[in-house]
């Protein structure tokens, strides 16, 4: 793949969801190395349909996403001591950056209280804030309201 000199591979995927009364409710987004951003949001609550969108983001956006990931230092963390997924749901974070590939799985995080009371509050806090910043919903919602 032709990229700028010395640029590393970058890929990021985040999933949060659960299966329950209203079916498989989830949110997932994915930044692919070629700049394609895929986003899917599904809820069967009141027969909502799935939203699936994909769009190409500019190289600047990819660079910024990568910078935010680097700054968070999430690549140094490990999900070994994070809560395991449960009936309330699951989160997945998969990132490829250069020669590092992480694939973390944990339960849903309701609030910072869950983070504080976990066995790895530092790591989980990094995960928690990183996801908030990268979620494409955040700027979209802000621009809309």
């Amino acid at each position, binding site marked *: 793949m032709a990229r700028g000199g010395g640029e590393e591979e970058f890929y990021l995927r985040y999933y949060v969801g659960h299966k329950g009364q209203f079916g498989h409710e989830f949110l997932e987004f994915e930044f692919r190395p*070629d700049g394609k951003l895929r986003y899917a949001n599904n809820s069967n609550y009141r027969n909502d349909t799935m939203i699936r969108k*994909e*769009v190409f983001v500019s190289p600047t956006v990819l660079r910024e996403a990568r910078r935010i990931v680097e700054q968070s230092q999430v690549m140094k963390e490990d999900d070994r001591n994070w809560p395991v997924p449960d009936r309330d749901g699951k989160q997945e974070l998969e990132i490829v950056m250069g020669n590092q*590939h992480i694939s973390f799985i944990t339960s849903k995080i309701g609030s910072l209280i869950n983070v504080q009371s976990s066995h790895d509050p530092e790591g989980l806090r990094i995960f928690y804030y990183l996801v908030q910043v990268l979620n494409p919903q955040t700027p979209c919602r802000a*621009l809309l309201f």
Partner: protein
Amino acid sequence: MAAANAGDVEVVDFDSDDDDLMDDDAPEVNPAPAAPRLRSTIAAGGDSAAARKTKGRGFREEPSSSRPLVGRTDFDSLGSDDGPGPLRSFSVCAAIEGWIILVTGVHEEAQEDDLHNAFREFGQVKNLHLNLDRRTGFVKGYALIEYESFDEAQAAIKAMDGTELVTQIINVDWAFSSGPVMRRNVRRRYVFVDVVKCIRLFICIEFLVRAK
């Protein structure tokens, strides 16, 4: 079961060619070359110096059904038929009709006013989102700005990219694009356009010459 082997299988399953091939709408979109690179790097295993270091439960578990994006082809592909270039955000969020630019390198103590003052001279700023780091309360380093017209947005990009704002150099670029980050293909497209222009020019010149 060795964790490393399970990890290899897990990653290969995820980055399957099926996923990449199925969402190729436009001919130039071909992330498939990227997939073999990832796979071969990982398939090489621990004996290759270039192999990726893997970490996390995702490599130790069986592939689950929580991969809703994989293999799906029924995505709203926004703007990828139009060729390379900026994409009007109307297609992205139906309620936002304008052109969105991304400003990066924003100083963490910058205020919305600083950005607004700097960018209002290119056109009416319809929307401005300065992302905050919720943990620190400081600016996350990027902002999204929306203009109504392409020209306004492009003028802002040209004028402000690489300039200083609140003591820090900012970069300004489009947020969305119609095509993938494949510079090779972009170059090819430009060459084609140039050739067509040249041919048209030659034809014009030939007519002029013959007319004399």
